[in-house]
Each structure stands twice: as structure tokens, then as C-alpha cells.
């Protein structure tokens, strides 16, 4: 037998077994059923993420509120000091005016 005959014999078309298609499809379906479905990382760590988010929220929100209150308080104290300064200047000026009126009245009287 020559090489060419051997090659021809090897490449001869053979019909697939009768249940080949059914077996193949069954195997594919079985593999699809058992193969793990890829899950996003954040879905795999849902609990950890929820705990972390809870911690961040429980720290960040009260922290933010406290910081806001602290700033408001400082702003309020600064505004109050300005107000007291204004009232003090007003007070001194009006008292001075009153003294001037008294002095003038005394001189006139």
C-alpha cells in the first residue's frame, strides 16, 4: 500500500454515529448546567460591602453633622462678638452724647 492510499484511507468520510448529535447536545447542556455562572465581585462580597457601607455611613454622617455644628457655632460666636462690639460702640457713643447734652445744659442753666 502506497502512502497515497494510506492517506486516502485516513481521510475517507465516515458518517457520525446515529446518536452523536443527541449526545453532544446533552453534554453541552449538562456542562452549561454545572458550569459556575460568573458573578460580579461586588455581588460575591455583598455582606462585607454592606457592613463597610454601614460603618462609613455611621461614621461619616454623625461626623459631618458634628463638623457642620462646630462651624455654625464658631460662625455664631464670631457674629455675636461683632454684635457685642457694635452694641458697645453704640453704647459708648450714646453715653458720650448724653454727657455732652448734660454739660451743655449745665452751662446754659
Amino acid at each position: 500500500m502506497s502512502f497515497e492510499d494510506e492517506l486516502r484511507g485516513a481521510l475517507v468520510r465516515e458518517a457520525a454515529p446515529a446518536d452523536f448529535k443527541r449526545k453532544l447536545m446533552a453534554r453541552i447542556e449538562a456542562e452549561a448546567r454545572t458550569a459556575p455562572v460568573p458573578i460580579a465581585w461586588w455581588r460575591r462580597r455583598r455582606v462585607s460591602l454592606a457592613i463597610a457601607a454601614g460603618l462609613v455611613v455611621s461614621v461619616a454622617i454623625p461626623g459631618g453633622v458634628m463638623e457642620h455644628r462646630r462651624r455654625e457655632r464658631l460662625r455664631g460666636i464670631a457674629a455675636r462678638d461683632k454684635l457685642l462690639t457694635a452694641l458697645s460702640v453704640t453704647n459708648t457713643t450714646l453715653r458720650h452724647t448724653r454727657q455732652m447734652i448734660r454739660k451743655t445744659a449745665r452751662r446754659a442753666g
Partner: protein
Amino acid sequence: MKKIWILLALAGLLAGHLAAQLPSQLPSQPGFDFKQLDKLGANAKDATSVTLEGPTLKLAASFLGSDADDKDAAALKSLVARLKGIYVRSWEFDKAGMYNAADIEPFRAYVRGQQWSRIVEVKEADESSEVYLKTGTADKFGGVAIISAEPRELTIVYIEGTISIDDVAKLSGNLDIPDLDVLKHGTSKEGKSNANGKKDE
């Protein structure tokens, strides 16, 4: 699509709410531009400038003290609650003649306007003091303005808001307002005293 309309409606409501709040939060502008007085303090050795209006004034009033037994604080709070703005400009100079009295004229012209009446004008050799009240409703006035000019000291006070003669009297000494030196340095020049001249305990 329905969600978008709901979101748009909510955004519209929020915008409307914010727009409605905005005018009440903006400070009311005084009728006088205090920048016109800036040149008066060009040669001052010491200057005090206070501008308090709108929400900042309300905030300041809320920090005046919450002791219910403190009548002075309560009276001050009640007085300040009726005010729209407080503007104080005060300068001290090293020697006489370091400010131009003509630079006070824009303010004087403003308080000589129709709505104002001068209730006090005292003049001595080289100093003068004027008090003006703005027309208000019934026994209340719409504001008070004071100009006190001495050779080495000049003070202009403008208080806008509902104010009575009693309030002016209170402001001139009945309330326990800390002395300016106490506010600035913690102690007054003549020991620790308040604006009424009472020594602090």
C-alpha cells in the same frame, strides 16, 4: 418615561422651594453705601468696622446667651430680633486733623433725608454729636443713626430696624453690654468694667 416626569416634577418643586427661601435669606441692603466712608479711616491708628445684617445678625442674636434669668440678655435679644442691620464705623487717630470732616457729608446728607429726623445735635468747641431717628410706625422708629466727631475720634453708627426710644435708652447704658476694651483685650483700660461703668465681679 413616567419616572422621568416624576423626577422633573420633584426637581421643579425643590427649585421652587429654594427660590422662595432665597429672598428671605438675602440680607436687606441699607439705603446708604458704607464704602463711601472708607476714606475717613485712611489715617486711623485704630479702626472698628462692623456690618451685621440679615441671617448673620439673627445668628449673632441667637448666641447672646440663653439664661432665662438674665434679663439683660433677654432684653438685648428682643431688641436685636427686631433689627435688620447694624453698621458701625469707628476710627481713632494719633492727632487732630487726620480726617476730613467733609467726608462725613454723604452720610449726613442721607440721614437728613425725608424719612429721618434729627433728635439731638450737640456741639462743643471741637466736637459734635448728632442722633437721627428714621420714621417708623406708631411709637416705633425705623432706625437710628449716630455721628460722633471728636478731633481724634470719629464714630458713625447706623442701626436699621424697628426700634423705640426705650431701646435707644437701653442702648445708651441700661444693658450690661461689655466694654469695647474688654471685648478686644479681655480687660478694660481702667480695670475690668462693663459699658455701664460697673466693675465686673
